């Protein structure tokens, strides 16, 4: 009965949530961004979960894991299918270099500091500290597009190219996050420790690619003859479920394998746009359910250390700042790039939650130590992001929605 109740509640919230938009409400942009990222669903999940009213308790929660696997593969495909190489090539190479540098510096900054903190202040084991710090570095390097999208809806900028750069960086650095996550998992294949065997790691990565490759090829073959309106979703959903299932059965990441599958579809299937539209259509509802489950699985009673959260936020900010500072100084640009542009890339939600959920599924025993860092830091980053983006643009015009408020 509890499962039924939980199912009804999750479905109801997901359907309502996917229809409700706070973008036209009278909130500051920061609050709107929090709603846009969906952090409130983590809190609702927390209330529904073991720490709250226990509808999604420890016994009920695992029954939803197959859905999480499916959802992660869905997000992976959604991300991957946007990488059509022909299109990516058309974008300025400088944009890619800036993205790579800022991602690398942020990753290093967060990973190194968090490792030092875990080892020296929390006396965690070497291997655990290493895994958790690399994982946090991975999460830190990705930027969500939500804050940029919200600012874009409310302001018009003279330096549009700078805005395009922000959009590009926030769109592409997720790829680096997925790749680093894949490498981390490849090293972690033995469970709670890292094993530095390049051959085995390469093998693991190849298997991940293969798990994405086979279903994507299946999808391509099934679509050789134009599929009907009824059949197309069956093929796509079938392939996504199969990818997720293969990945989880072989102890791989549904997100990573889905991502590889998406890339293959993007570059080999003529129905790429149809796939993208279909994936977008249900994305929000799937994402909401995943956040609700994430919230329900979070147990704050196991301890929250605000110092760790603070360290993470500060060093992510510094990483983003210096990464972009170095990148901006390294290339000549036809438009003005402020040296502080990095602070406009703080928005964190979206993909980072996906990576977090994937980590929880694969390594539940390790996740208690970092889950709150990601959730709380996201909350703060989402709140600050729009304001920080606006500081980068001197000439701007408010075109906000009726009822919208300036900051």
């Amino acid at each position, binding site marked *: *009965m509890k499962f*039924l109740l939980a*199912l*009804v509640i999750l*479905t109801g919230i*997901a*359907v309502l949530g*996917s*229809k409700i938009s706070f973008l036209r409400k009278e909130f500051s942009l920061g609050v709107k961004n929090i709603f846009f990222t969906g952090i409130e669903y983590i809190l609702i999940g927390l209330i529904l979960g073991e720490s709250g009213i226990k509808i999604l308790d420890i016994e009920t929660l695992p029954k939803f894991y*197959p859905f999480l*696997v*499916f959802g992660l593969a869905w997000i992976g495909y959604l991300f991957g299918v946007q990488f059509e190489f022909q299109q990516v090539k058309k974008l300025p190479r400088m944009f890619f270099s800036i993205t790579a540098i800022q991602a690398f510096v942020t990753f290093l900054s967060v990973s190194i500091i968090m490792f030092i903190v875990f080892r020296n202040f929390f006396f965690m084991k070497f291997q655990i500290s290493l895994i958790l710090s690399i994982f946090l570095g991975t999460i830190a390097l990705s930027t969500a597009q939500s804050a940029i999208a919200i600012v874009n809806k409310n302001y018009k900028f003279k330096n549009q190219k700078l805005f395009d750069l922000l959009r590009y960086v926030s769109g592409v650095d997720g790829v680096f996050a997925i790749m680093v996550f894949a490498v981390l998992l490849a090293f972690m294949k033995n469970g709670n420790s890292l094993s530095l065997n390049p051959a085995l790691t390469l093998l693991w990565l190849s298997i991940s690619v293969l798990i994405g490759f*086979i*279903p994507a*090829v*299946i999808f391509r*073959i*099934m679509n*050789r*003859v134009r599929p009907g*309106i*009824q*059949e197309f*979703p*069956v*093929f796509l*959903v*079938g*392939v*996504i*479920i*199969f*990818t*997720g*299932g*293969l990945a*989880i*059965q*072989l*102890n791989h990441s549904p997100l990573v394998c889905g991502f590889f599958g998406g890339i293959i579809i993007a570059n080999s299937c003529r129905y790429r746009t149809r796939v993208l539209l279909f994936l977008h*259509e*249900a994305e929000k*509802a799937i994402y909401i359910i995943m956040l609700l489950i994430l919230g329900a699985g979070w147990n704050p009673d196991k301890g929250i250390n605000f110092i760790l959260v603070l360290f993470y936020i500060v060093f992510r900010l510094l990483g983003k700042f210096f990464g972009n500072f170095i990148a901006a100084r390294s290339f000549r640009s036809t438009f003005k790039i402020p040296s502080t542009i990095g602070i406009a890339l703080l928005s964190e939600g979206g993909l980072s939650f996906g990576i977090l959920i994937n980590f929880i599924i694969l390594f539940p025993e390790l996740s208690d130590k970092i889950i709150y860092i990601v959730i709380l830091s996201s909350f703060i980053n989402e709140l600050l992001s729009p304001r920080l983006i606006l500081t980068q643009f001197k000439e701007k015009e408010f075109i906000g929605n009726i009822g919208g408020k300036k900051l």
Partner: protein
Amino acid sequence: MTNKLIVLVLVILSMGIVFFLADSGVINNKMSPTLIIGFMILSSYNIGFIGEKFGLPRITGYIFSGLLFGPYLITIYKIDTVESLSFLNSLALAFIAFNAGAELRIKDLAKEIKTIVSLTVGVTIFVFSGVTLTVFLLADLIPFMKGSNIAVRLGVSSIFGVISVARSPSSAIAIINETRSKGNYTNTILSVAVIMDVLIIILFAVIISVCEVLIKGKGALDINFILFLIFEIFMAFVLGYFLGRFISFLLTKLKVEFSVIIIALGFFVIKFSHFTGDHFNEIFESSINIEPLLICMAAGFTVQNFSGHGEIFLKRMDKISIPVYITFFTITGASINIDMLKAGWFFGIVIFISRIAMIYTGSYFSGKIAGSDKKILNNSWLGFITQAGVSLGLLTEVLRRFPEMGIYIQTILIASITLNQIIGPVGFKYGLTAVRETLEMRKNKLD
């Protein structure tokens, strides 16, 4: 078709590797439900498609796929996997019930009312008495009935008779959807199948009560019990009406999410019905079982006939029908117990033949009496062969009431039901094609 074969090979190969790794102890031996569902969708769809190229209905392909990969042959779907996926079956069944109810239009029913009533009554009488008589006459050859007195023989034979009356509206609706059939024949067959789904519950309750008296030699026919049953059916219709009204409201508010909501609603109805049943049992020590599928059918019927949103409802349901049918019929196929089929095959075939003969005779005479047109007269029997979930559900009740004999009855009837399940859809598709009511035939007619 080559494409589908390649896909099938790739999917099976992938699963083969996973099972090999699991057997070697490299990965977890317990298969992930996500993987099983993904495999089910891809493999069954393609097998159904290949079957279609040979003139078979897709659902036969899905059933075959379930049987092939099920617990008795290739064992990709193990018994516990099939059990753990049974909730998907409930979801699908509720969806099919909504659909079946919505396919019944009062104006179409009114047009064919004479034929529908005549076929329902006629086929029921013929099948029940024919199969009962067959088993009664063969009683000395059936090991567990050998040497029993006339009352017991009559009781057991009636159980065979009443279960043979049950049909499968789910298969009928799936084939109608697949072939996009329309016309008098389609409406008549579907209407009879749905009405029989309601009547069989009452008929079974009456017959099983009589059988208890005959077989166990104690008790008496409890009229209150029958009245209670009629009350339960009435309640199902009332709840279904309100649910239908609610769905009509949702249809105006929801778009893409409607498919998710309708499946969730179906699941909710099923669980709600089981919950209230258990609750009444615990608190009042009386059993109230409001049949969930009747609620769903009544809801679909309400949307179609009392809301003005019937066609939109069917259109939206149609969009997600393929995965629902794949899941339902694959699990149905995987649930076929081949061990029982082997054990009861001989008498199973006898009952299968006798049932088909009675369906043919009953529908022919009923059609004659009602003055049906020739195409219904000659082909209606083809639509009444399929048996599935309802019959198996009734068998479970037989087993509960007669634990000693029940297992033998179950063995034989499962063999017969399996044959009906495999042959029935093929027969119905043939019937729809013969009367030229499938989309393909209608197009040919126009050309």
